[in-house]
């Protein structure tokens, strides 16, 4: 009997232990099988955007590397700008010559090269939405744009239109403008358009209704859904991978060929607003401020620091780990294989990014 009671006591103790819980957190995080750093990434077409006409040595070295060549097939130089009369710049012969040389150089490495058109003034500031709308509504401006675009595109494989901040009532003008450009450049060159990342109908974004995706989808070869700057009101990650999925799914309902955008830059949030930062800048600030870098809920790194004048700042950015996790989370059940990835802002990324992503490409 005593033996039985002892056994019962042991059994009860084990049962109580299981109920009360005798397990603990190690304090570390590991990735699930699909998200592991050595797991294969879902195959997708890759495009990278360079903000400018000039490729610096860092960017050139990255693009020449085997990792980038495995991940990327297309380079967009966000370089062309329309003047007030619709003329596309740069028009200087030396600038055109330089651009042609850059394109030839990239093509030698196997990349397709597109020129992006940014609607900025001569100082580099974006036209406000009302002004861009007035441009697009003017048939003479559109004709001048079209006529000067074609020679500027000569060395490139295609063109991308980066229209931002438009009011909703610019919808007809945007559709007419893209249709005219499409008729002018296709099929000899490819045409793409950058579209706001709406996640609902009607659009949840200011100006989101300016883009009639269903009509635009028939006029362009690819629609780039700009799933960037998720945290535009307060500190937070530059992208939320789940939100980006919703934006792309909505767009795919109207146009089958879409890209999801992934930021290579980070964002510094302060009392005077926000600004874009590079990976190295983020690392340097954290090091100088002697603050630890944490990971947010999406696994994007971030830290808080006190900047000049005692201003509190918060910096969020991405590294190879957080980018790799997001790309792995976008498996083919979540986003079909024909959805491409547009990496935005070459030069601001974690320097190991493309080598690590390239090693995981199928």
């Amino acid at each position: 009997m005593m033996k039985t009671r002892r056994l019962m006591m042991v059994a009860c103790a084990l049962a109580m232990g299981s109920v009360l819980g005798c397990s603990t957190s190690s304090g570390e995080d590991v990735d699930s099988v699909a998200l592991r750093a050595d797991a294969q990434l879902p195959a997708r077409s890759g495009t990278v955007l360079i903000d400018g006409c000039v490729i610096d040595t860092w960017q050139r070295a990255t693009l020449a590397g085997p990792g980038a060549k495995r991940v990327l097939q297309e380079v967009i130089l966000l370089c062309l700008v329309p003047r007030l009369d619709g003329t596309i710049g740069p028009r200087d012969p030396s600038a055109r010559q330089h651009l042609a040389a850059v394109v030839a150089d990239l093509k030698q490495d196997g990349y397709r090269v597109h020129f992006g058109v940014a609607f900025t003034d001569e100082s580099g500031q974006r036209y406000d939405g009302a002004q861009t709308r007035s441009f697009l509504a003017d048939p003479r401006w559109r004709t001048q744009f079209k006529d000067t675009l074609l020679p500027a595109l000569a060395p490139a494989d295609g063109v991308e239109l980066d229209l931002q901040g438009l009011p909703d009532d610019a919808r007809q003008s945007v559709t007419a403008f893209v249709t005219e450009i499409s008729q002018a450049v296709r099929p000899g060159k490819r045409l793409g358009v950058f579209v706001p990342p709406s996640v609902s109908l009607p659009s949840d974004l200011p100006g989101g209704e300016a883009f009639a995706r269903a009509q635009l989808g028939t006029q362009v070869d690819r629609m780039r859904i700009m799933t960037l700057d998720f945290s535009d009101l307060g500190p937070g990650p530059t992208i939320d991978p789940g939100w980006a999925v919703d934006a792309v799914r909505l767009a795919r309902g109207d146009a089958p060929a879409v890209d999801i955008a992934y930021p290579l830059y980070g964002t510094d949030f302060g009392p005077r607003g926000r600004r874009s930062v590079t990976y190295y800048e983020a690392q340097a600030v954290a090091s100088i401020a002697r603050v630890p870098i944490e990971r947010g809920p999406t696994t994007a790194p971030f830290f808080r620091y006190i900047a000049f004048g005692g201003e509190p700042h918060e910096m969020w950015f991405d590294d190879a780990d957080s980018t790799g996790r997001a790309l792995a989370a976008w498996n083919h059940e979540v986003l079909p294989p024909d959805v491409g990835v547009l990496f935005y802002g070459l030069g601001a990324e974690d320097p190991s990014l493309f080598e690590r992503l390239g090693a995981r490409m199928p």
Partner: protein
Amino acid sequence: MRDATILHFCGRIAIVGPTIEVRSGHDLGSARDYLFAVPIAVAIVCCPTSARADIDFQVSATAGVSWLRSMPSLKNPSTTTAARVVPEGKIPFGTSFTGVGAMFDMGISTDDRWTIPLLGFGGYGAVGSYDGLVTSADGSIARLRPWSTYEIDILLPGLGYRMKRRRFMFSATLRTGFAYVATGGSIAGGESYVPITATATTAIFQAEVEACRRLDPLTRVCLHVAPRIYEFGFLNGATFGLRVEWGR
């Protein structure tokens, strides 16, 4: 069917089950038989018996370990985060699970050879130190907390064979059932996250093997091992532990 009698057993009052004999159909239909059959059936279900007959009732309590080689993908509920509504779906898990807990079981044996386990309930909580698991839910980043995992087993009838050698008994049984596992976690939405409980349910098909030593005429202590032939996959787990059994 002889009447049930009440005896003192192990220092307490217990209803001792009757010897059950097979009778012809018209006898079983009588009101008198039903009058006796009901309390007898209750007695059989509730208590261990010292019946001298071909059918004996068995109950057991097991303290032990449940191990799953690979946790299945868990079902997440539809969740509203700061960024989106994450639909109900599957969250990949993939790591192993080890839990400690207890199982209570009842069954019958016939002819002192055949065993028919009837119904069992088991509960196991995670034991050990676990890393947090970063995974995904419909494209959103999710986290699971493996240290919060628990498993509930409901074991259904099966069939087994046992043999006795002096004080020792050996048995092997095939058995069916269901298992339910649940794990706490969260789904990210921008700079915040929403807690969730992710769950999975599966059918079980297991083999039970045990070696027992008799402590007294009605009590045995056993080493119990039950490889799960199917549990979220083939040969994906096992339970094992120390079992105390009551019954002949």
